[in-house]
Protein backbone atom coordinates (compact mmCIF):
# COMPACT_ATOMS: atom_id res chain seq x y z
CA UNK A 1 0.00 0.00 0.00
CA UNK A 2 2.79 2.37 0.93
CA UNK A 3 4.63 1.37 -2.23
CA UNK A 4 1.54 2.16 -4.29
CA UNK A 5 1.27 5.57 -2.67
CA UNK A 6 4.92 6.35 -3.18
CA UNK A 7 4.65 5.23 -6.79
CA UNK A 8 1.72 7.58 -7.43
CA UNK A 9 3.34 10.47 -5.63
CA UNK A 10 6.60 10.04 -7.47
CA UNK A 11 4.95 9.64 -10.87
CA UNK A 12 3.04 12.86 -10.32
CA UNK A 13 5.76 14.93 -8.70
CA UNK A 14 9.00 13.92 -10.37
CA UNK A 15 8.34 14.70 -14.07
CA UNK A 16 8.73 18.50 -14.03
CA UNK A 17 11.90 18.13 -12.00
CA UNK A 18 13.75 16.44 -14.86
CA UNK A 19 13.55 19.33 -17.37
CA UNK A 20 14.58 21.59 -14.51
CA UNK A 21 17.71 19.54 -13.86
CA UNK A 22 18.51 19.34 -17.55
CA UNK A 23 18.20 23.09 -17.97
CA UNK A 24 20.29 23.71 -14.89
CA UNK A 25 23.03 21.41 -16.22
CA UNK A 26 23.01 23.14 -19.57
CA UNK A 27 23.19 26.50 -17.85
CA UNK A 28 26.16 25.33 -15.79
CA UNK A 29 27.91 24.18 -18.95
CA UNK A 30 27.26 27.51 -20.61
CA UNK A 31 28.56 29.36 -17.55
CA UNK A 32 25.19 30.80 -16.59
CA UNK A 33 23.28 30.54 -13.36
CA UNK A 34 20.16 29.34 -15.11
CA UNK A 35 16.58 29.12 -14.03
CA UNK A 36 15.80 27.68 -10.61
CA UNK A 37 15.47 23.91 -10.40
CA UNK A 38 11.76 24.17 -9.70
CA UNK A 39 11.05 26.56 -12.58
CA UNK A 40 8.98 23.97 -14.54
CA UNK A 41 6.62 23.68 -11.55
CA UNK A 42 6.13 27.45 -11.50
CA UNK A 43 5.52 27.42 -15.24
CA UNK A 44 2.86 24.74 -14.87
CA UNK A 45 1.18 26.65 -12.07
CA UNK A 46 1.17 29.79 -14.18
CA UNK A 47 -0.27 28.02 -17.22
CA UNK A 48 -3.04 26.40 -15.20
CA UNK A 49 -4.22 29.77 -13.95
CA UNK A 50 -4.46 31.25 -17.45
CA UNK A 51 -7.46 31.32 -19.68
CA UNK A 52 -7.61 29.33 -22.92
CA UNK A 53 -8.09 30.54 -26.46
CA UNK A 54 -9.52 28.13 -29.02
CA UNK A 55 -9.44 28.86 -32.70
CA UNK A 56 -12.83 28.87 -34.41
CA UNK A 57 -11.63 26.46 -37.08
CA UNK A 58 -10.89 23.71 -34.57
CA UNK A 59 -13.23 20.96 -33.46
CA UNK A 60 -13.51 18.80 -30.34
CA UNK A 61 -10.46 16.84 -31.51
CA UNK A 62 -8.29 19.82 -30.77
CA UNK A 63 -9.67 20.11 -27.24
CA UNK A 64 -9.48 16.39 -26.64
CA UNK A 65 -5.86 16.14 -27.79
CA UNK A 66 -4.01 17.30 -24.65
CA UNK A 67 -6.42 15.52 -22.32
CA UNK A 68 -6.26 12.16 -24.04
CA UNK A 69 -2.51 12.42 -24.41
CA UNK A 70 -1.99 13.16 -20.75
CA UNK A 71 -4.42 10.43 -19.72
CA UNK A 72 -2.77 7.84 -21.93
CA UNK A 73 0.67 8.75 -20.68
CA UNK A 74 -0.47 8.62 -17.08
CA UNK A 75 -2.01 5.22 -17.67
CA UNK A 76 1.22 4.02 -19.20
CA UNK A 77 3.06 5.27 -16.13
CA UNK A 78 1.09 2.87 -13.99
CA UNK A 79 2.67 -0.13 -15.72
CA UNK A 80 6.28 0.90 -15.27
CA UNK A 81 8.02 -0.39 -12.17
CA UNK A 82 9.98 2.36 -10.45
CA UNK A 83 13.17 1.26 -8.85
CA UNK A 84 12.81 -2.25 -7.52
CA UNK A 85 9.10 -2.02 -6.75
CA UNK A 86 6.17 -3.63 -8.48
CA UNK A 87 4.00 -1.23 -10.46
CA UNK A 88 0.34 -0.63 -9.49
CA UNK A 89 -0.92 -2.50 -12.57
CA UNK A 90 0.62 -5.54 -14.13
CA UNK A 91 -0.49 -8.48 -16.26
CA UNK A 92 1.00 -10.74 -18.91
CA UNK A 93 1.45 -8.91 -22.18
CA UNK A 94 1.08 -5.44 -20.70
CA UNK A 95 4.17 -4.35 -22.58
CA UNK A 96 2.13 -4.25 -25.78
CA UNK A 97 -0.48 -2.11 -24.04
CA UNK A 98 2.29 0.14 -22.74
CA UNK A 99 3.68 0.78 -26.21
CA UNK A 100 0.20 1.38 -27.59
CA UNK A 101 -0.73 3.79 -24.82
CA UNK A 102 2.28 5.90 -25.73
CA UNK A 103 1.30 5.62 -29.39
CA UNK A 104 -2.26 6.67 -28.55
CA UNK A 105 -0.92 9.78 -26.86
CA UNK A 106 1.16 10.60 -29.89
CA UNK A 107 -1.79 9.96 -32.18
CA UNK A 108 -3.93 12.50 -30.38
CA UNK A 109 -1.16 15.08 -30.27
CA UNK A 110 -0.70 14.85 -34.01
CA UNK A 111 -4.40 14.70 -34.79
CA UNK A 112 -4.96 17.80 -32.68
CA UNK A 113 -2.13 19.50 -34.56
CA UNK A 114 -3.69 18.55 -37.90
CA UNK A 115 -7.06 19.78 -36.67
CA UNK A 116 -5.81 23.37 -36.59
CA UNK A 117 -5.44 23.28 -40.37
CA UNK A 118 -2.15 25.17 -40.12
CA UNK A 119 0.51 24.11 -42.58
CA UNK A 120 3.21 24.50 -39.92
CA UNK A 121 1.54 22.12 -37.59
CA UNK A 122 0.85 19.70 -40.42
CA UNK A 123 4.56 19.71 -41.20
CA UNK A 124 5.38 19.10 -37.56
CA UNK A 125 2.87 16.26 -37.41
CA UNK A 126 4.40 14.66 -40.48
CA UNK A 127 7.89 14.84 -38.97
CA UNK A 128 6.76 13.54 -35.63
CA UNK A 129 5.05 10.53 -37.15
CA UNK A 130 7.90 9.79 -39.55
CA UNK A 131 10.48 9.74 -36.81
CA UNK A 132 8.32 7.77 -34.41
CA UNK A 133 7.99 5.10 -37.09
CA UNK A 134 11.67 4.47 -36.52
CA UNK A 135 11.73 5.10 -32.79
CA UNK A 136 8.85 2.85 -31.76
CA UNK A 137 10.34 -0.36 -33.14
CA UNK A 138 13.38 0.22 -30.95
CA UNK A 139 11.23 0.28 -27.80
CA UNK A 140 9.30 -2.77 -28.93
CA UNK A 141 12.39 -4.74 -29.86
CA UNK A 142 14.02 -3.78 -26.58
CA UNK A 143 11.03 -5.08 -24.68
CA UNK A 144 11.03 -8.26 -26.76
CA UNK A 145 14.71 -8.88 -26.08
CA UNK A 146 14.28 -8.25 -22.37
CA UNK A 147 11.24 -10.49 -22.33
CA UNK A 148 13.27 -13.23 -23.97
CA UNK A 149 16.07 -12.79 -21.45
CA UNK A 150 13.79 -12.75 -18.44
CA UNK A 151 11.22 -15.26 -19.66
CA UNK A 152 8.47 -12.98 -18.42
CA UNK A 153 5.71 -11.29 -20.39
CA UNK A 154 4.78 -8.44 -18.08
CA UNK A 155 6.66 -5.16 -17.83
CA UNK A 156 7.20 -5.69 -14.13
CA UNK A 157 8.87 -9.05 -14.68
CA UNK A 158 10.84 -7.90 -17.71
CA UNK A 159 12.27 -4.77 -16.24
CA UNK A 160 13.13 -5.93 -12.75
CA UNK A 161 14.89 -9.00 -14.11
CA UNK A 162 18.04 -7.33 -15.40
CA UNK A 163 20.85 -7.42 -12.92
CA UNK A 164 24.60 -7.35 -12.76
CA UNK A 165 24.78 -11.09 -13.38
CA UNK A 166 22.71 -10.70 -16.52
CA UNK A 167 25.08 -7.96 -17.61
CA UNK A 168 28.03 -10.29 -17.28
CA UNK A 169 26.26 -13.03 -19.21
CA UNK A 170 24.90 -11.08 -22.16
CA UNK A 171 26.51 -7.68 -21.84
CA UNK A 172 26.90 -7.16 -25.55
CA UNK A 173 23.21 -7.25 -26.32
CA UNK A 174 22.44 -5.11 -23.26
CA UNK A 175 24.96 -2.50 -24.33
CA UNK A 176 23.28 -2.40 -27.72
CA UNK A 177 19.89 -2.00 -26.07
CA UNK A 178 21.14 0.75 -23.81
CA UNK A 179 22.65 2.64 -26.72
CA UNK A 180 19.51 2.24 -28.82
CA UNK A 181 17.23 3.19 -25.96
CA UNK A 182 19.25 6.26 -25.11
CA UNK A 183 18.95 7.50 -28.66
CA UNK A 184 15.22 6.90 -28.59
CA UNK A 185 14.99 8.59 -25.20
CA UNK A 186 16.54 11.69 -26.71
CA UNK A 187 14.51 11.53 -29.91
CA UNK A 188 11.15 10.84 -28.29
CA UNK A 189 11.54 13.66 -25.84
CA UNK A 190 12.74 16.12 -28.44
CA UNK A 191 16.18 16.62 -26.98
CA UNK A 192 19.31 17.65 -28.83
CA UNK A 193 20.71 16.23 -31.13
CA UNK A 194 17.36 15.19 -32.60
CA UNK A 195 15.24 18.20 -31.82
CA UNK A 196 15.84 21.37 -29.91
CA UNK A 197 13.28 22.05 -27.20
CA UNK A 198 14.31 25.69 -26.95
CA UNK A 199 14.12 26.61 -30.59
CA UNK A 200 11.11 28.30 -32.03
CA UNK A 201 12.19 28.33 -35.62
CA UNK A 202 9.39 26.53 -37.36
CA UNK A 203 11.59 25.10 -40.08
CA UNK A 204 13.83 23.11 -37.79
CA UNK A 205 11.71 22.01 -34.89
CA UNK A 206 9.61 18.94 -34.58
CA UNK A 207 7.85 18.78 -31.30
CA UNK A 208 7.33 22.43 -30.43
CA UNK A 209 5.61 23.10 -33.70
CA UNK A 210 2.91 20.55 -32.94
CA UNK A 211 1.63 22.46 -29.97
CA UNK A 212 1.92 26.05 -31.17
CA UNK A 213 -1.81 26.65 -31.05
CA UNK A 214 -2.42 25.36 -27.55
CA UNK A 215 -2.57 27.78 -24.67
CA UNK A 216 -3.36 27.99 -20.99
CA UNK A 217 -4.21 24.81 -19.07
CA UNK A 218 -4.21 22.78 -22.31
CA UNK A 219 -0.65 23.79 -22.97
CA UNK A 220 0.16 23.05 -19.33
CA UNK A 221 -1.18 19.55 -19.79
CA UNK A 222 0.99 19.10 -22.87
CA UNK A 223 4.10 20.33 -21.09
CA UNK A 224 3.38 18.13 -18.15
CA UNK A 225 2.64 15.16 -20.43
CA UNK A 226 5.95 15.61 -22.19
CA UNK A 227 7.81 15.69 -18.90
CA UNK A 228 5.92 12.60 -17.77
CA UNK A 229 6.87 10.77 -20.93
CA UNK A 230 10.50 11.72 -20.35
CA UNK A 231 10.37 10.29 -16.87
CA UNK A 232 8.63 7.08 -18.00
CA UNK A 233 11.20 6.41 -20.69
CA UNK A 234 13.98 7.37 -18.29
CA UNK A 235 12.70 4.85 -15.78
CA UNK A 236 12.57 2.22 -18.52
CA UNK A 237 16.08 3.12 -19.55
CA UNK A 238 17.38 3.00 -15.99
CA UNK A 239 16.06 -0.51 -15.51
CA UNK A 240 18.19 -1.72 -18.38
CA UNK A 241 21.22 0.49 -17.89
CA UNK A 242 21.58 0.63 -14.11
CA UNK A 243 20.12 -2.46 -12.51
CA UNK A 244 20.89 -1.49 -8.90
CA UNK A 245 19.17 -3.61 -6.29
CA UNK A 246 19.33 -3.64 -2.53
CA UNK A 247 17.38 -5.27 0.18
CA UNK A 248 15.96 -2.16 1.79
CA UNK A 249 12.83 -0.92 -0.10
CA UNK A 250 13.22 2.69 1.08
CA UNK A 251 16.83 2.79 0.00
CA UNK A 252 15.59 1.52 -3.36
CA UNK A 253 13.24 4.49 -3.72
CA UNK A 254 16.09 6.84 -2.86
CA UNK A 255 18.42 5.16 -5.35
CA UNK A 256 15.72 5.45 -7.98
CA UNK A 257 15.23 9.17 -7.48
CA UNK A 258 18.96 9.84 -7.42
CA UNK A 259 19.57 7.84 -10.58
CA UNK A 260 16.74 9.70 -12.32
CA UNK A 261 18.39 12.98 -11.47
CA UNK A 262 21.77 11.68 -12.60
CA UNK A 263 20.25 10.61 -15.90
CA UNK A 264 18.79 14.09 -16.33
CA UNK A 265 22.27 15.51 -15.72
CA UNK A 266 23.66 13.12 -18.30
CA UNK A 267 21.08 14.27 -20.84
CA UNK A 268 22.02 17.85 -20.05
CA UNK A 269 25.67 17.05 -20.65
CA UNK A 270 24.87 15.42 -23.99
CA UNK A 271 22.80 18.43 -24.98
CA UNK A 272 25.59 20.80 -24.07
CA UNK A 273 28.23 18.85 -25.97
CA UNK A 274 26.42 18.14 -29.20
CA UNK A 275 25.01 20.23 -31.97
CA UNK A 276 21.63 19.62 -33.43
CA UNK A 277 21.63 17.16 -36.32
CA UNK A 278 20.55 18.13 -39.77
CA UNK A 279 16.96 17.08 -40.31
CA UNK A 280 17.99 14.52 -42.96
CA UNK A 281 20.37 12.84 -40.52
CA UNK A 282 17.71 12.24 -37.89
CA UNK A 283 16.16 9.20 -39.60
CA UNK A 284 19.64 7.80 -40.12
CA UNK A 285 20.44 8.05 -36.43
CA UNK A 286 17.14 6.43 -35.54
CA UNK A 287 17.81 3.77 -38.11
CA UNK A 288 21.11 3.13 -36.37
CA UNK A 289 19.21 2.73 -33.10
CA UNK A 290 16.91 0.24 -34.84
CA UNK A 291 19.89 -1.67 -36.18
CA UNK A 292 21.44 -1.83 -32.73
CA UNK A 293 18.23 -3.12 -31.19
CA UNK A 294 17.94 -5.65 -34.02
CA UNK A 295 21.51 -6.81 -33.38
CA UNK A 296 20.69 -7.25 -29.74
CA UNK A 297 17.75 -9.39 -30.75
CA UNK A 298 19.90 -11.52 -33.06
CA UNK A 299 22.42 -12.06 -30.29
CA UNK A 300 19.73 -13.12 -27.84
CA UNK A 301 17.68 -15.25 -30.19
CA UNK A 302 20.47 -17.31 -31.76
Amino acid at each position, binding site marked *: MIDLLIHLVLIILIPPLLPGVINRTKAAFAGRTGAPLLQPYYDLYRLLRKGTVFSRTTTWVFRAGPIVTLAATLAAALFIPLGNHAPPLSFNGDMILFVYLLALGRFFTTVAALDTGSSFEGMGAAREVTFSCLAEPVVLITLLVLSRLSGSLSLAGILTHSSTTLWLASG*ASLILLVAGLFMVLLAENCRIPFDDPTTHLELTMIHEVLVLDHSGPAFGMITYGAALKLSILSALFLHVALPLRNADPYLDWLVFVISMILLAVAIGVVESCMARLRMTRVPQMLLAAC*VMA*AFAMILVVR
Partner: protein
Amino acid sequence: MSSFADQLLVLVLLINILILGTHRARVAIRAIALQGVVLGMMPLLIHPVQGHILLITLFVVLAKGVCIPWLLFGALSKIEFSEDLPPFLGYAGNVIAGAVATVMAFAFAARLPLAPHHQELLTVPAALATILAGFIALASRRKAINQVIGYLMLENGIFIFGLLLTEAMPLMVEAGALLDLIAGIFVMGIIINQIGREFSSIDTSRMTALREEE
Protein backbone atom coordinates in the same frame (compact mmCIF):
# COMPACT_ATOMS: atom_id res chain seq x y z
CA MET B 1 37.01 -18.43 -26.03
CA SER B 2 36.08 -15.91 -23.42
CA SER B 3 32.72 -14.25 -23.65
CA PHE B 4 34.49 -10.91 -23.50
CA ALA B 5 35.89 -11.62 -26.95
CA ASP B 6 32.34 -12.22 -28.12
CA GLN B 7 31.23 -8.86 -26.77
CA LEU B 8 34.07 -7.21 -28.65
CA LEU B 9 32.87 -8.82 -31.85
CA VAL B 10 29.56 -7.04 -31.36
CA LEU B 11 31.50 -3.81 -31.35
CA VAL B 12 33.11 -4.89 -34.61
CA LEU B 13 29.66 -5.46 -36.10
CA LEU B 14 28.55 -2.02 -34.98
CA ILE B 15 31.60 -0.46 -36.59
CA ASN B 16 30.59 -2.15 -39.85
CA ILE B 17 27.25 -0.40 -39.71
CA LEU B 18 28.87 2.89 -38.73
CA ILE B 19 31.17 2.72 -41.74
CA LEU B 20 28.28 1.88 -44.03
CA GLY B 21 26.22 4.75 -42.68
CA THR B 22 28.74 7.54 -42.34
CA HIS B 23 29.18 10.15 -45.01
CA ARG B 24 32.56 11.35 -43.77
CA ALA B 25 35.65 9.61 -45.01
CA ARG B 26 37.57 10.65 -41.90
CA VAL B 27 35.06 9.02 -39.59
CA ALA B 28 35.20 5.88 -41.71
CA ILE B 29 39.01 5.79 -41.54
CA ARG B 30 39.00 6.20 -37.75
CA ALA B 31 36.33 3.52 -37.46
CA ILE B 32 38.25 1.05 -39.60
CA ALA B 33 41.36 1.74 -37.54
CA LEU B 34 39.43 1.06 -34.33
CA GLN B 35 38.05 -2.12 -35.84
CA GLY B 36 41.55 -3.21 -36.75
CA VAL B 37 42.84 -2.53 -33.24
CA VAL B 38 39.93 -4.38 -31.63
CA LEU B 39 40.57 -7.34 -33.91
CA GLY B 40 44.28 -7.16 -33.21
CA MET B 41 43.60 -7.55 -29.50
CA MET B 42 41.39 -10.58 -30.02
CA PRO B 43 44.12 -13.25 -30.24
CA LEU B 44 45.31 -12.17 -26.79
CA LEU B 45 41.86 -12.78 -25.35
CA ILE B 46 41.29 -16.10 -27.03
CA HIS B 47 44.58 -17.84 -26.53
CA PRO B 48 46.92 -18.12 -23.59
CA VAL B 49 49.63 -15.49 -23.81
CA GLN B 50 52.75 -16.64 -25.61
CA GLY B 51 55.42 -14.97 -27.68
CA HIS B 52 53.86 -15.95 -30.99
CA ILE B 53 50.48 -14.47 -30.06
CA LEU B 54 52.01 -11.32 -28.62
CA LEU B 55 53.94 -10.71 -31.80
CA ILE B 56 50.85 -11.17 -33.96
CA THR B 57 48.92 -8.76 -31.76
CA LEU B 58 51.69 -6.21 -32.00
CA PHE B 59 51.91 -6.53 -35.78
CA VAL B 60 48.19 -6.30 -36.34
CA VAL B 61 47.69 -3.33 -34.03
CA LEU B 62 50.60 -1.48 -35.56
CA ALA B 63 49.54 -2.28 -39.11
CA LYS B 64 45.81 -1.76 -38.86
CA GLY B 65 45.73 0.81 -36.11
CA VAL B 66 48.64 3.04 -37.05
CA CYS B 67 50.11 2.35 -40.44
CA ILE B 68 47.04 1.95 -42.62
CA PRO B 69 45.06 4.88 -41.15
CA TRP B 70 48.14 7.03 -41.58
CA LEU B 71 48.42 6.02 -45.23
CA LEU B 72 44.71 6.63 -45.78
CA PHE B 73 44.78 10.03 -44.11
CA GLY B 74 47.82 10.81 -46.22
CA ALA B 75 45.93 9.89 -49.36
CA LEU B 76 43.01 12.02 -48.23
CA SER B 77 44.98 15.09 -47.21
CA LYS B 78 46.43 15.70 -50.64
CA ILE B 79 42.98 15.91 -52.17
CA GLU B 80 41.83 19.40 -51.32
CA PHE B 81 38.24 19.12 -52.42
CA SER B 82 35.74 17.12 -50.51
CA GLU B 83 32.46 16.32 -52.12
CA ASP B 84 29.49 14.45 -50.81
CA LEU B 85 28.90 11.59 -53.20
CA PRO B 86 26.03 9.56 -51.84
CA PRO B 87 26.52 5.85 -52.46
CA PHE B 88 24.24 3.82 -54.65
CA LEU B 89 21.21 2.91 -52.50
CA GLY B 90 21.88 5.95 -50.28
CA TYR B 91 23.32 5.93 -46.77
CA ALA B 92 20.15 4.58 -45.18
CA GLY B 93 19.95 1.91 -47.87
CA ASN B 94 23.51 0.91 -47.07
CA VAL B 95 22.77 0.62 -43.38
CA ILE B 96 19.69 -1.47 -44.02
CA ALA B 97 21.62 -3.67 -46.44
CA GLY B 98 24.32 -4.09 -43.81
CA ALA B 99 21.77 -5.03 -41.16
CA VAL B 100 20.08 -7.51 -43.48
CA ALA B 101 23.46 -8.98 -44.37
CA THR B 102 24.23 -9.37 -40.67
CA VAL B 103 20.98 -11.17 -40.03
CA MET B 104 21.65 -13.42 -43.00
CA ALA B 105 25.16 -14.11 -41.76
CA PHE B 106 23.80 -15.19 -38.38
CA ALA B 107 21.13 -17.36 -39.98
CA PHE B 108 23.64 -18.92 -42.34
CA ALA B 109 26.30 -19.50 -39.71
CA ALA B 110 23.79 -21.33 -37.53
CA ARG B 111 23.44 -23.97 -40.24
CA LEU B 112 27.15 -24.40 -40.95
CA PRO B 113 28.73 -27.65 -39.81
CA LEU B 114 31.18 -26.01 -37.42
CA ALA B 115 33.45 -27.79 -35.01
CA PRO B 116 31.49 -28.48 -31.79
CA HIS B 117 33.49 -26.07 -29.63
CA HIS B 118 32.95 -23.25 -32.14
CA GLN B 119 29.21 -23.74 -32.36
CA GLU B 120 28.31 -21.18 -29.70
CA LEU B 121 30.78 -18.48 -30.68
CA LEU B 122 30.07 -15.27 -32.50
CA THR B 123 33.25 -15.61 -34.54
CA VAL B 124 31.88 -17.21 -37.68
CA PRO B 125 28.71 -15.07 -38.02
CA ALA B 126 30.73 -11.95 -37.27
CA ALA B 127 33.27 -12.91 -39.91
CA LEU B 128 30.59 -13.52 -42.52
CA ALA B 129 28.74 -10.33 -41.62
CA THR B 130 31.91 -8.23 -41.86
CA ILE B 131 32.83 -9.76 -45.20
CA LEU B 132 29.36 -9.04 -46.55
CA ALA B 133 29.45 -5.49 -45.20
CA GLY B 134 32.80 -5.04 -46.93
CA PHE B 135 31.25 -6.17 -50.19
CA ILE B 136 28.35 -3.77 -49.75
CA ALA B 137 30.75 -0.89 -49.24
CA LEU B 138 32.85 -1.97 -52.21
CA ALA B 139 29.89 -2.27 -54.51
CA SER B 140 27.91 0.78 -53.51
CA ARG B 141 30.49 3.44 -52.69
CA ARG B 142 31.61 5.70 -55.46
CA LYS B 143 34.56 7.37 -53.79
CA ALA B 144 37.79 5.55 -54.26
CA ILE B 145 38.76 6.02 -50.61
CA ASN B 146 35.55 4.41 -49.40
CA GLN B 147 36.10 1.49 -51.72
CA VAL B 148 39.48 0.97 -50.10
CA ILE B 149 37.81 1.05 -46.70
CA GLY B 150 35.34 -1.55 -47.95
CA TYR B 151 38.27 -3.70 -49.01
CA LEU B 152 39.77 -3.32 -45.54
CA MET B 153 36.49 -4.41 -43.99
CA LEU B 154 36.54 -7.47 -46.20
CA GLU B 155 40.08 -8.20 -45.02
CA ASN B 156 39.03 -7.73 -41.42
CA GLY B 157 36.19 -10.19 -41.88
CA ILE B 158 38.61 -12.77 -43.21
CA PHE B 159 40.90 -12.02 -40.29
CA ILE B 160 38.05 -12.77 -37.87
CA PHE B 161 37.60 -16.16 -39.47
CA GLY B 162 41.34 -16.66 -39.19
CA LEU B 163 41.03 -16.26 -35.41
CA LEU B 164 39.75 -19.82 -35.32
CA LEU B 165 42.93 -21.01 -36.96
CA THR B 166 45.78 -19.22 -35.27
CA GLU B 167 47.61 -22.52 -34.84
CA ALA B 168 47.55 -23.32 -38.53
CA MET B 169 48.89 -19.97 -39.74
CA PRO B 170 52.58 -19.57 -39.03
CA LEU B 171 53.80 -16.21 -37.82
CA MET B 172 55.79 -15.65 -40.98
CA VAL B 173 52.74 -15.97 -43.20
CA GLU B 174 50.63 -13.72 -40.96
CA ALA B 175 53.29 -11.07 -40.91
CA GLY B 176 53.77 -11.36 -44.64
CA ALA B 177 50.05 -11.03 -45.24
CA LEU B 178 49.98 -7.86 -43.14
CA LEU B 179 52.97 -6.48 -44.98
CA ASP B 180 51.23 -7.16 -48.26
CA LEU B 181 48.12 -5.46 -46.97
CA ILE B 182 50.09 -2.37 -46.00
CA ALA B 183 51.87 -2.34 -49.34
CA GLY B 184 48.52 -2.73 -51.09
CA ILE B 185 47.01 0.19 -49.20
CA PHE B 186 50.12 2.22 -49.92
CA VAL B 187 49.76 1.59 -53.64
CA MET B 188 46.02 2.27 -53.50
CA GLY B 189 46.70 5.52 -51.66
CA ILE B 190 49.03 6.64 -54.43
CA ILE B 191 46.49 5.66 -57.06
CA ILE B 192 43.78 7.62 -55.24
CA ASN B 193 46.00 10.67 -55.35
CA GLN B 194 46.58 10.22 -59.04
CA ILE B 195 42.87 9.71 -59.65
CA GLY B 196 42.19 12.93 -57.77
CA ARG B 197 44.73 14.76 -59.88
CA GLU B 198 43.68 13.25 -63.19
CA PHE B 199 39.90 13.40 -62.87
CA SER B 200 39.57 16.30 -60.37
CA SER B 201 37.36 13.95 -58.36
CA ILE B 202 37.68 10.61 -56.67
CA ASP B 203 34.35 9.50 -58.00
CA THR B 204 35.20 6.17 -59.59
CA SER B 205 31.94 6.01 -61.46
CA ARG B 206 33.38 8.66 -63.76
CA MET B 207 36.04 6.27 -64.94
CA THR B 208 34.41 4.94 -68.05
CA ALA B 209 37.00 5.57 -70.73
CA LEU B 210 37.97 1.91 -70.98
CA ARG B 211 35.29 -0.28 -72.45
CA GLU B 212 34.47 -2.20 -75.57
CA GLU B 213 33.73 0.02 -78.53
CA GLU B 214 30.67 -0.81 -80.52
